[in-house]
């Protein structure tokens, strides 16, 4: 409803309120960005998945991969590229998809509080009738929803190609993989939100979120190289999500819950941090 088209106001009549205004605005303001990332996801998947049939059972391709240094194939997880699950995991969820969703999550997370404070707009929002905890919680919720939308896009597009590309993925396994994929991104995005809330600067949020994503990936890659370094994988959210090949094997409820609980914890810490400190200084 716009004011201009409203009938003449009766005495004392006031503008209607939207419930959860901070959450709603974060979602509505972010729709272009969300749409852009969704298109990017779809494009990446539509580039990779259709060519699987020409690669699987292709001895030349397998020879090419065998000729690569084993350290490289282990780093980019190309060992199991001959199965549909291994291929989808290696090319999308473990690599380009992880990269894209991490960048999206980290930039959204860093902008949600740190970026907003740095630009000076958080000050004005907090001067209105909202608490800091409300602002942090509703923006965290909007971040989670946007990331889950991206995970849903990945689910739908992979599901679409499942039969045409002969991936032979189990729908249940695909669903939990997408939830892990989203959960991993949400942890990175929440870390960015927390670092932004701690510092009031977007760049620290990006740094904090990127540290979780990059170190998680690097620890997993190094841990894959030798038994001596396997302990590094214990510190890798990336390994926790994808180490047991969820697309082929599924996952247990605890692994899944771990990511969302960790993200909630980071979000709660962001809210508490923001409540304590001076804003806009």
């Amino acid at each position: 409803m716009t004011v201009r088209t409203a009938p003449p106001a009766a005495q004392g009549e006031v503008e209607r309120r939207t419930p959860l205004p901070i959450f709603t605005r974060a979602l509505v303001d972010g729709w272009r960005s969300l749409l852009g990332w969704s298109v990017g996801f779809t494009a990446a998947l539509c580039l990779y998945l259709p060519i699987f049939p020409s690669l699987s059972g292709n001895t030349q391709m397998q020879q090419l991969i065998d000729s690569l240094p084993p350290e490289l194939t282990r780093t980019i997880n190309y060992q199991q590229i001959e199965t549909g699950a291994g291929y989808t995991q290696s090319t999308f969820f473990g690599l380009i998809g992880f990269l894209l969703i991490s960048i999206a999550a980290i930039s959204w997370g860093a902008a949600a509080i740190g970026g907003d404070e740095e630009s000076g707009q958080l000050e004005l929002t907090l001067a209105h009738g909202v608490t800091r905890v409300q602002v942090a919680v509703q923006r965290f919720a909007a971040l989670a929803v946007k990331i889950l939308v991206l995970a849903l896009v990945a689910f739908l597009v992979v599901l679409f190609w499942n039969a045409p590309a002969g991936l032979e993925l189990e729908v249940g396994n695909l669903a939990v993989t997408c939830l892990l994929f989203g959960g991993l991104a949400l942890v990175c995005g929440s870390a960015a939100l927390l670092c932004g809330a701690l510092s009031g600067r977007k760049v620290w949020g990006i740094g904090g979120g990127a540290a979780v994503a990059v170190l998680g990936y690097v620890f997993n890659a190094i841990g894959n190289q030798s038994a001596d370094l396997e302990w590094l994988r214990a510190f890798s959210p990336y390994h926790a999500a994808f180490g047991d090949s969820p697309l082929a094997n599924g996952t247990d409820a605890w692994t899944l819950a771990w990511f969302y609980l960790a993200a909630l914890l980071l979000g709660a810490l962001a809210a508490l941090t923001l409540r304590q400190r001076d804003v806009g200084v």
Partner: protein
Amino acid sequence: MPRLGIVMTSRSSSDSAVHTSVDPGVDIAVDAVDLVKRFGRTVALDGVSFTIPRGSVFGVIGPNGAGKTTIMRALLDLIRLTSGRATLLGTDSRNAGPELRRRIGFLPGELILEGRVTGRRLLRHYANISGPVPLGRVDELAERFGLDLDRTVRTLSKGNKQKLGIVQAFMHRPDLLVLDEPTSGLDPLMQQEFLGLVREARAAGQTVFLSSHVISEIQQAADEVAILRDGRIITVSGVDALRDTAIRHLRMSATGIRTAELHSRLAALDGVAELDCRATATGAEATAVLGGALSPFVRAIATLDLTDLVVEEPDLEESVLRLYSAPEDRS
């Protein structure tokens, strides 16, 4: 509107920062007691106390970094005081809930508005998180300021963004308005419109707390003015008293007069300082600052053959700086 007494103290003027309340029966909108704020080793506020009666307009003035913005942010609980307390509309500002802030309208000093949303949508958003906005109020305010609400916020000029900021501060008719440099970026016509809005607010019983650099604005709008420097209130006074202390820059040139003669004419006047006379091709020109009354000056130059005369509006900030530039004894 009866003029209500305001009692201001600061540490510089009294060791114990005695805070004397106005009559207990008088309704107080803002009661700040000995506000202290440190950022690390920097003291931003050094024992600021003031009281603003409900329904009055209170101006605070001072150079950049004096602490004007810090006071406003502390009142809104955006920053937390190191010590001291402030009561707004009967509620302690610290950790005050949304209910208090719904009764306040705030305009930040450096208003930054971004985004691809239209002004109307942005105001809708702020209406959602502020006190109830009467239907039609936003359009009424936008019309007064000639503000196009259907343009995207980030394409608006600084002045138009400032108008949006003013609208969001006033639209829910808050009991208390906290306005940091409200007219910055506005052209003179819009400044007058804004001052009209402030007068209406006062007439409606709303309280206005504003900071400004512009003497004419303070003069027209405020009942009382506090002068702030280095985190302390140096003085608080009525506007008339303040105007008397203001100085004006003046510049003039005249033909058919020698430098020495011009100099002697002007130097004889009370309140003329920094007099500088130079010869020109046809006569002489002078620059000076003038404190005090204008009439003697006008009489002194009435017989000259003037080719140019500029008397600038009194610069309150500069007057204040000059008046209080002498180092003070710190308690």
